């Protein structure tokens, strides 16, 4: 009974936060505030030292339950070739995009894991398509859909329906750089009010401009005591600083070439139910085409989501000024 109450409380809490914060219109993935140039998935024959640890990336789209119109998932530069993607020798990579809805698309535990294993492709496949090098889709959009919101998995906690898209590098060894947009239209990007997107592992490409600063926003759920921040193949390219409502700026360890590095933070009461801002500043000695992977787990080894629109907004540190009188 007690745990039920707790769960209900947790859900209400998230609903409240979502209703407060997800009033935005932007469902580009990555989002504008994240300032991440592209998502990244390599062909499965690539060396992990190129930056992708598992050649797969899953993203979830949340459609608010009030929205009942068809929608589309658009992919920018879905092919692997041309000027944006990263070639290894010659273009030989095929990537699949698979859209899932229905029961278990999110509630299946494997779906929320960081590694593509088990029943991670849970739910009902609604659409799929493979892309190799294809100038037609280079530097342009491909649209999946229309989808009926009712095809998603209804999750009460979110008061909305969830869809999932998995990009996998099924062959080759090149790097596929792409973006998504959740749109009300097939041929243009028109956001859905109140929608959001999230992932449990973020695989992306860093900017090549050393002056660009990127962010991702993990959400600290109730019950979180500590978080373990893991990052892969950072190439020691600058630093990662954690900012929150209670943390003015705390640098965490970043990885070198082709390996994972972890750092752990104890969560402060004030941070529960808010987002962290992981800020990435590149090193001055430029590392070009740096691809990285980041995930966060709590003390129970459960993954924490990164929302493209940070829950509660971009966290701003607010200190507490003290005045101690001195004789």
């Amino acid at each position, binding site marked *: 009974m007690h745990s039920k109450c707790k769960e209900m409380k947790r859900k209400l809490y998230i609903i409240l936060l979502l209703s407060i914060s997800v009033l935005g219109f932007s469902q580009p993935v990555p989002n504008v505030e994240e300032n991440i140039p592209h998502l990244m998935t390599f062909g499965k024959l690539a060396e992990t030292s190129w930056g992708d640890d598992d050649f797969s990336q899953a993203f979830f789209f949340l459609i608010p339950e009030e929205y009942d119109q068809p929608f589309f998932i658009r992919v920018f530069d879905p092919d692997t070739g041309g000027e944006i993607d990263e070639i290894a020798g010659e273009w030989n990579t095929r990537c699949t995009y698979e859209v899932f809805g229905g029961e278990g698309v999110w509630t299946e535990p494997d779906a929320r894991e960081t590694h593509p294993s088990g029943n991670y492709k849970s739910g009902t496949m609604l659409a799929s398509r493979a892309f190799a090098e294809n100038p037609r889709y280079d530097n342009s959009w491909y649209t999946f859909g229309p989808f009926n919101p009712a095809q998603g998995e209804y999750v009460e906690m979110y008061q909305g329906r969830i869809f999932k898209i998995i990009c996998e590098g099924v062959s080759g060894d090149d790097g596929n750089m792409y973006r998504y947009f959740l749109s009300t239209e097939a041929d243009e990007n028109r956001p859905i009010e109140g929608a959001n997107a999230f992932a449990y592992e973020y695989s992306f490409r860093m900017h090549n401009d050393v002056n660009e*600063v990127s962010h991702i926003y993990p959400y600290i759920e109730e019950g979180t005591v500590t978080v373990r921040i893991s990052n892969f193949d950072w190439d020691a390219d600058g*630093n990662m*600083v954690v900012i929150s409502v*209670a*943390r*003015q*700026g*705390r*640098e965490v360890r970043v990885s070198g070439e082709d390996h994972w590095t972890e750092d752990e933070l104890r969560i402060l009461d004030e941070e529960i139910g808010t987002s962290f801002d992981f800020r990435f*500043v590149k090193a001055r000695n430029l590392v070009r085409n740096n691809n990285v992977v980041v995930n966060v787990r709590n003390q129970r080894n459960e993954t924490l989501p990164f929302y493209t629109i940070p829950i509660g907004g971009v966290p*701003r*540190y*607010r*200190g*507490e*000024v*003290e*005045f*101690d*009188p*001195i*004789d």
Partner: protein
Amino acid sequence: MRPFPMTPSIFNEMKKALLPIWILLLLLPPAAAQDYYNVRKQTRISTGLNEAAAVPFEDGVVYITESTSVGASSPTDPLGRRLFTIFYYREKGGVKGPFIDALVTRRHEGPVSFTSDGTLMAFSQQRPSAANRDFDPLGIYFADNVEGQWTNIRPYEHNDPFAWLFSPALSPDGRTLFFSANLPDAIGGFDIYKSELKGGSWTKPENLGRAVNTSGEELYPFFHPSGKLYFSSDGHDDNLAGYDLFETILLNGKWTKARKLPAPFNTLSNDYHVWFDENFKSGYITSDRGSGSKEIFTFGTDIPEFEAPEPIKKTYYKYRIYDRKLDTVDTDLFRYSWLINDTLELPGHEVVYRFPGPGRYVCKLQVYDRQLDTLVEGQTVKTLNIELNEQAVITCPDTIPVNTPVVFDGSETHLPGFNIGRYVWEFGDGTYGEGIRVTHAYRYPGTYRVILGVEERKQNRRDVPEVRSNFRDVVVTGSD
């Protein structure tokens, strides 16, 4: 062995001869006069004969008198001296008469002393002794107050048939007895002795020693609840005016050297006895000032009562300013500073700053991001409001050496809208002062509570002015 103390006539002659010297001495007073006391003769008691050693009891005063109107069968003793009898003057109705009829004899009685609860009385009385047929010794006796009746009269166990023990002074709890006696180990004629009640018996009288006693006479002790012992003496070095009043206190097991009380307690005449109330605001003096015979004077002050004074709240101007939540200070990534009212920048994540005065100060933590070469959008801000507390303010050192004059300053008193009539000081050592700035020297080490009372200016003579008061504690250091 001297008889019961009478003012020697030779002293009167000497005093007249030495009058010019006394005037000179007055110009160099040994202690500051306590001119906040007003002294007046208790005319309802005075008879023109000798009255002395007044102490309050219930709604009146108990004293000794030579008055012939006492109803004693003979007004003189066998040597022709007038008898002293214990009298009681009741304020209500102005009635006076023997305090206890049963004590009225053909010998000397009194003075008396009571415990603070009025249940025990010590008194001196002359009684015949089989051991001494030459004269009737004066001894000390006790009586218990049982439902208004003084009973169980019993002698002090160290009464001496060959000595006179008189003018007892009980401590408030009745467990210590001081008295004057011409016991064999007396330094002079009469000395002050102390005896303590231990295990139901009184300890052997202890001579208080040369800090108190002299080759002259020490008479009429009075032990105040503060621990001060008052007495009269004609033997101390600077005492050229016959009997004067002195005080001493037991510090570290020793009685301090007797100090002469200032005016108005001492005069050029003989001053024999003093009794103070607990706060030193009123009491009785026995003196022959103005008449040549011992008379009882009352004294009081117009020092107002300080009801529940508050401790002074200090106004702080110097502060350590910091962000309580800032758990990680990374000076490689960030540069921290505090911005005061958008005008003054103090470097550091934690600063100490003395604000120039009362006012509102907006203090904002500024964080400069070294990597991004920009200021971090900050929300760490708070306003410090420094305002003066509405109170009477005492400015003085926290620690004061003994016997060192120190200025106590009330000029920083902040009571807007309060029309201040006068500043009144209570120093916690039984002395007072008046004025916005006063100088005071503490005579004994210890911790004292100084109270500054600020009295509203009266609009009409009959107004009862409001008094605001605050206190602070000072520590007086050093040896007496």
